[in-house]
């Protein structure tokens, strides 16, 4: 199988869709000859022309709505947001329209649109260009939220997202764009609701998605011989593959979620609830998330805020060392900790 970068795999899925289906169009800012901010659409304009690679003005809410209207009337738009943070400007159209039209109109129409966006921190872009806002969309019924972790899953899941008849939020972690991996000649038949066991293990389940799958894999490697870690790649955040999660944690009875979004009300909170409702555990669930702060720009602070292999290793070790009876009852959420710290700083 040929090796391809994550970036080129996303591009390949779009090129194949454009080739296969004349109703597919791309929309977004600077996605033409410029190739998009992360060069994902490079070359597509030359190949498919401006009628299908539709460059939009800087009007995120507007072009999201245009894509939705086009999707209701026969096109299948794939929309690129330059950074996920800018989806904040389009929340109205995405959450009030794309997510709801099928339901409110009792299935009279579908909204086959994909909203793609690069997300995540680690590059010093600062707080308006580094966020991981996936939980916002998980919280909106009617949206699917998909996060690939490899070139192969980027290609396969995007292909499935474009074929899907409903709106799909497709999130690409910036740190993965240059990742190389094997990609087969044909997209295959990917489903949008299945997690994958990346590495089987017996002792603890470490759950990740996108970039954090790689943190989880590295954590497993570092602990090899001491702790047998099972790594799950969620792939889809909405819907969550509850069956795969429960099966895994039923076996390991311990779970650590490694997530790029903020701790409070995040992906890990939902995964934890799903498990806590269904599985009797040997240790309290742990979440390794971005701190509840706007993503800081400078390297020292950004590193401190984001999840890392070291933090995940520490969380797994804690899982292995403590049983319920040994847990420090004083554990508090990051939010509580931070607000306490804030009060201290304020002299209260």
């Amino acid at each position, binding site marked *: 199988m040929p090796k391809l970068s994550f970036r080129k795999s996303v591009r390949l899925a779009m090129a194949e869709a454009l080739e296969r289906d004349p109703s597919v169009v791309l929309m977004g800012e600077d996605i033409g000859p410029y190739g998009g901010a992360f060069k994902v659409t490079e070359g597509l304009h030359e190949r498919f022309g401006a009628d299908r690679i539709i460059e939009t003005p800087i009007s995120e809410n507007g*072009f999201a*709505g245009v894509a939705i*209207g086009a999707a209701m*009337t*026969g096109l299948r738009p794939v929309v690129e947001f330059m950074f996920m943070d800018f989806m904040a400007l389009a929340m109205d159209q995405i959450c009030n329209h794309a997510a709801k*039209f*099928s339901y409110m109109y009792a299935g009279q129409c579908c909204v086959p649109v994909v909203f793609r966006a690069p997300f995540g921190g680690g590059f010093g872009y600062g707080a308006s260009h580094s966020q991981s806002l996936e939980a916002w969309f998980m919280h909106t019924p*009617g949206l699917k939220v998909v996060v690939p972790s490899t070139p192969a899953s980027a290609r396969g899941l995007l292909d499935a997202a474009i*074929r899907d008849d409903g709106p799909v939020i497709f999130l690409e972690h910036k740190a993965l764009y240059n990742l190389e991996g094997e990609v087969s000649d044909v997209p295959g038949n990917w489903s949008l609701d299945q997690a994958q066991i990346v590495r089987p293990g017996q002792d603890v389940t470490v759950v990740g998605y996108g970039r954090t799958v790689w943190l989880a894999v590295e954590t497993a490697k570092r602990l090899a011989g001491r702790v047998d870690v099972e790594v799950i790649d969620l792939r889809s955040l909405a819907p969550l593959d509850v069956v795969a999660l429960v099966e895994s944690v039923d076996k390991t009875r311990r779970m650590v979620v490694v997530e790029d979004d903020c701790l409070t009300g995040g992906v890990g909170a939902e995964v934890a609830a799903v498990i806590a409702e269904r599985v009797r555990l040997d240790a309290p669930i742990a979440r390794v998330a971005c701190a509840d702060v706007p993503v800081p720009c400078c390297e020292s602070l950004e590193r401190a805020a984001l999840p890392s292999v070291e933090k995940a290793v520490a969380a797994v070790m804690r899982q292995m060392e403590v049983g319920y009876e040994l847990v420090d009852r004083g554990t508090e959420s990051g939010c509580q900790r931070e607000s306490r710290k804030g009060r201290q700083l304020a002299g209260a």
Partner: protein
Amino acid sequence: MTTMRDMTPYVVGRAVPIDPGASGQDGSSRAGCSVDSSWAVTMLRIRHFELKINELFARGEVRGTAHLCVGQEAVPTGVCAALRSDDYVSATHRGHGAAIAKGLSLYGMFSEILGRRDGYGAGRGGSQHIACMEKGFLGTNGISGGGLPVSVGAALSSKRLGLGRVAVAFFGDGVANQGAFHEALNMAGIWRLPIVFVCENNLYAMSAPVSSFVAGGSIARRAESYGMRHDSIDGNDVGQVFEASRRFVDLARSGEGPGLLECLTYRQLGHSKSDKRAYRTREEEAAWLKRDPIARERRRLDGAGIMPAADFDAMESRVVAEVASEAERALACQAADVSTLYDHVVPEAAAKTCGGITCPS
């Protein structure tokens, strides 16, 4: 430079004679007048539908809210009369009139607003979320300004797929201050899409008078910034609305790009059910009642020898009876079934039709 004159008072872009009631001369010079009573029927159906909703509200049969367009019927009637049945329309929170004018059934609409299973959304949409894809009706909309980009998208797909369909986006005067309005007009402008933006300027956005909330003195003229033709007309004269719409729609269809049509009108009732109308005077309301679009059409039909007033009144009685019986049928329809709660959250496997086109999958 902005001058004080630009700021007050709000001026309609073109001088429009809007006191036909006094002169009885309305419509005499219009080219596109209907030679029959079809516009009158549509306006009457809208009027009595709205009055029936009001009555059902008072009786406690309708939950939530509803925004009625009594007094504004000529706008959707005239605009939709200029459309093909497969053209697209997106409407506002005050959108029952547009839905009826686009051909939706009274029964389906009553059922939807009453939460019955035969409603257009099987009871899950309600007054502000009624759509009918078969009729190209992309929905009333609970988000002020939400429908504009959606209509631009419909115009985009019509152009790309070569369907020859025109999209219309109705919007209120309040929406001229919404970002989505400007983004939508700009995209329609740069892509020269087949779309007509129709402003239902009823002088107020809830309680906010257009004169103090729209800078620059004109909604219609905002279209100039987007390189778009525009006109400002008497929206209580159905013939004038039709004539202007036909011009704009035909130009849009023939590839001449988008336009913005501002229709000056007046909402005779409150904004929604709890409005005490403290922001406007009873004198102003009385003056606008004299310009009632249906009374004017009744006089025109009589004066032009098309339909004597007595026949008009008999026709109105028939519409009242039709509306009453459709409402009764809807009341008799079963409530939405609880077992359907999760239906259509995500599209079901069956082929979906999108604006009359089967979604490729």
